[in-house]
């Protein structure tokens, strides 16, 4: 049987941070098991920006954030097994992990400690009980995101998004940029579950309506989605008869919540917390099973990846401490602090001419920019310099960063994620996308490579935000 000090299940942001942290604490023999073909987890399909403001003090795309961690893993030479599925974990002293892959078949690893970092999955349609037919064209937002951003495939032309969580908002923009028509985002609650800045830059920027207190009450089309019925709901979330509206579309994207993926935790016999959907842990992030720790979205669904990394860093350190210094009294259960659910309702009565929602960070401050007699702007409501800068630019010459993908020839994959190196005038977004969609680059592509020198005459280059090796 193979042996390791620490086995980390999952090579996404949580798993990588836990491994790095344990390594820093002096644990030498670490093994990461990752079921996908790359490290990075779901970040690999998150080509949009907004990551890393806390962890790296700069705004990165998901792929760039992942790449930084992957680089650190490589630098520390922490081994990982890709395309490898952990099928069973038993705790104790030692823990035993059973896994499988193509090369080794079934194998077991004896580990002094295990960190669970399996992440989460999306709620499927069935869990929402939306009646109607079961045609093709109903995707969870994350599945569509994988199709577009990793596979380079478009899953539809006319789209309705159900659920206004961040993934739903991001995908509404993503599909639009890629040429689809997003008819609306329907949200059953009277508020959005996403960040204010995402409502502004993903919906408002593209004129996509957000219908609060609305839900999809029927799916039409037997082979492929042909439309959905959208109804208003009352305060008990029940559809209001007579409010039905048929919306023609060929695609329904579902962004209706995430569920921690805890089949291995349950298989190991870990106590589960109904509130978080994850395992019960003590203050050292240790589950009720000896030697098994948990962090990231498998423990509870986080709002920001930065927080996942921070929590995982702690879990890695606790696991290291356990390996080096042995078992301590388990103590008592401590429920991880779950961020208060974002209840984002943009002030409906705001004066669009002078009131702005800042998109500089997740806080989404409501800023007022009043034009003074001398022509200058009086900015109030901002809580940092970024807010003031944003308001000034938004009132005079609004700018946006654009993230997308570019086709790659002779690469391992079909596309590589890209971004404009800096913001470009808002009015240039569609011209920029046209150039990006027409471009084809030759593999290999390295993160940071300039792929378009001067996009849409803005003098701003488009650069790669991920790596794409050449196919041998």
């Amino acid at each position, binding site marked *: 049987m193979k042996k390791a000090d620490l086995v980390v299940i999952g090579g996404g942001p949580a798993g990588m941070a836990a491994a790095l942290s344990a390594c820093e604490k002096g644990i030498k023999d670490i093994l990461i098991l990752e*079921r996908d073909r790359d490290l990075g987890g779901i970040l690999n399909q998150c080509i949009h920006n907004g990551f890393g403001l806390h962890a790296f003090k700069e705004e990165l795309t998901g792929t760039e954030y992942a790449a930084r961690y992957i680089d650190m893993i490589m630098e520390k030479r922490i081994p990982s097994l890709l*395309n490898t*599925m952990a*099928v069973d974990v038993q705790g104790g002293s030692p823990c035993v992990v*059973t896994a*499988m*892959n*193509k*090369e*080794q*078949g*079934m194998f077991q690893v004896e580990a002094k400690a295990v960190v669970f970092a399996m992440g989460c*999955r*999306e709620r*499927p*349609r*069935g*869990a929402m*009980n939306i*009646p*109607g*037919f*079961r*045609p*093709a*064209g109903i*995707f*969870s937002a*994350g*599945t569509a995101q*994988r*199709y577009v951003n*990793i*596979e*380079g*495939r*478009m*899953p*539809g*032309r006319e789209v309705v998004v159900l659920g206004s969580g961040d993934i739903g908002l991001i995908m509404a923009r993503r599909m639009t940029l*890629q*040429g689809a028509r997003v008819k609306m985002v329907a949200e059953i609650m009277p508020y959005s579950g996403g960040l204010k800045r995402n409502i502004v830059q993903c919906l408002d920027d593209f004129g996509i309506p957000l219908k609060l207190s609305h839900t999809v*009450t*029927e*799916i039409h089309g*037997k*082979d*492929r989605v042909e439309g959905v019925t959208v109804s208003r709901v009352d305060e008990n979330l029940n*559809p209001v008869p007579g409010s039905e509206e048929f919306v023609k579309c060929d695609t329904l994207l579902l962004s209706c919540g995430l569920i921690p993926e805890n*089949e291995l935790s349950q298989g190991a016999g870990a106590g589960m917390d109904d509130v978080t959907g994850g395992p019960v842990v003590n203050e050292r992030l240790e589950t009720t099973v000896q030697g098994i720790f948990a962090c990231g979205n498998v423990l509870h669904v986080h709002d920001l990846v930065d927080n996942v990394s921070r929590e995982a860093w702690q879990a890695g350190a606790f696991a290291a401490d356990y390996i080096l210094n042995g078992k301590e009294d388990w103590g008592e259960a401590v429920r991880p602090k779950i961020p208060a659910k974002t209840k984002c309702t943009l002030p409906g009565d705001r004066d669009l001419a002078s009131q702005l929602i800042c998109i500089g960070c997740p806080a989404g401050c409501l800023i007022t920019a009043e034009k003074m007699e001398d022509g200058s702007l009086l900015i109030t409501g901002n809580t940092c310099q970024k807010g003031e800068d944003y308001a000034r630019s938004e009132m005079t010459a609004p700018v946006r960063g654009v993230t997308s*993908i570019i*086709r790659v020839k002779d690469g391992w994959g*079909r*596309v590589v994620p890209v971004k404009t190196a800096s913001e470009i005038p808002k009015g240039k977004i569609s011209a920029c996308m046209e150039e990006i*969609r027409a471009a084809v680059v030759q593999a290999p592509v390295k993160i940071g490579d300039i792929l378009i020198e001067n996009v849409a005459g803005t003098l701003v280059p488009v650069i790669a935000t991920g790596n794409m090796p050449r196919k041998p």
Partner: protein
Amino acid sequence: MYDVVIIGAGVSGCAIARELSRYEVKAVVLEKALDVCEGTSKANSGIVHAGYDARPGSLKARLNVEGSRKMAALSRELDFPYKQNGSLVLCFDEKEKDKLEELKIRGEANGVDGLCILSREQLVEKEPNVGEGAVAALYAPSGAIVCPFGLTIALAENAAVNGVEFEFGTEVSGIESQECGYLVHTQKADYETRTVINAAGVRADEIHNMVSHMKMKITPRKGEYLLYDKKAGGLAVHTLFQLPTALGKGILATPTVHGNLLLGPTAQDIPEKDGTDTSREGLEQIVEKAALSIRHIPKKDVITSFAGLRAHITAYACEQEKDGGAKGDFVIGEVPDAPGFIDVAGIESPGLTSAPAIGEYVADMVKQLLGLREKAVFTSRRKGIPSMSLLSDEERHRLIKENPAYGNVICRCEMVTEGEIIDAIKRPLGAVTTDGIKRRTRAGMGRCQSGFCNPRVVEILARELGREESGIRKSGEDSWYILPSKEGGSL
């Protein structure tokens, strides 16, 4: 010239094809969908009924009990999932206990073994989570559950291996009577045949009416279902029926052979023959009624809902119907004014259970008609796709070493590997759609409902079939997943 054209590749058509393939016969199955098991056979309760429901002396009663008796052996012969878990008919009213007694007497008349009536205490012992209102139950130890896809696909594959042809995407548009047989028209080709077997499910009336003056009408009876996560699979041990109502067997709650919990069906007569949509009312009704049978059904563990259509005959202008003799029974036999044309119509519940018996019954009929001879070599056994999730670690390891594709997990919820998916494509009558993959391997059948595996299954299908990914379908011709490249869709 064919000896037999079978119309419909549902469980009845496939069972008949398989039994016929024992003989020297030139037979073809015509199916309008792209795969077998695309109609009622894919959307039902997956129950092997013990046989106490049907009226004694009816064809239904006979074929049900025969089918139920054959199913276990057939599952070993053809390698599909089957489990004899026993069934219980729950009674919720002291005053209705005599109805259980009636069912028991009827079952015994039909030849069902081992029936007994349980008191509340005995019931709770057998079914710990049974609803508080259940006062007594009829226990049928021979009740069982089966994978309806597994059964149908196994029958079809075995028929194909033994020489029966299958044509998919081939809808029958007309049938002409000829001097010695029939000419069956489809959009693709015409088929000259000595006999026709009409196993067209909810459309059997349309096929029947192409050749007979004694008109038949089938009104689909919709049944909606809710499927729950395997976490909830243990809530019911037996298949739990409720005492029948005017509209059928009421709502049942049952574990499936794969360990999920299944609730349903509703019963609603509808005009459309493809009305397999679910409704809010239907789904609510299921939850409400099922709560009588079992306690603590977790709302959040629903993973999908679906609806199937039972082929219910509402009118048939034939002799027996006039005396009321055949009412509600299966209609299986040569159509009186169409020699050599055999109806297998009105195969509603317990059609799945009866399938093995229907296969033999109809094959025997054709044998008599055409004077068929048994084949010298008939391959009676079939080995299914190995299911990595059910194997021991040693068996898994051995398989991966033989073929590394068995080590690449594609569907994480149901633990289905690339090797199994390739098998499903490469087998006789292999899968060409993602639904075909799902029904053969369970990829996409789990709790995430293909959220993670869909892009990868589409990719494998395209690679193995040598098609563009935009050419891969869910089930029907128009059920595309991604746009073709020329639209700038595939980037």
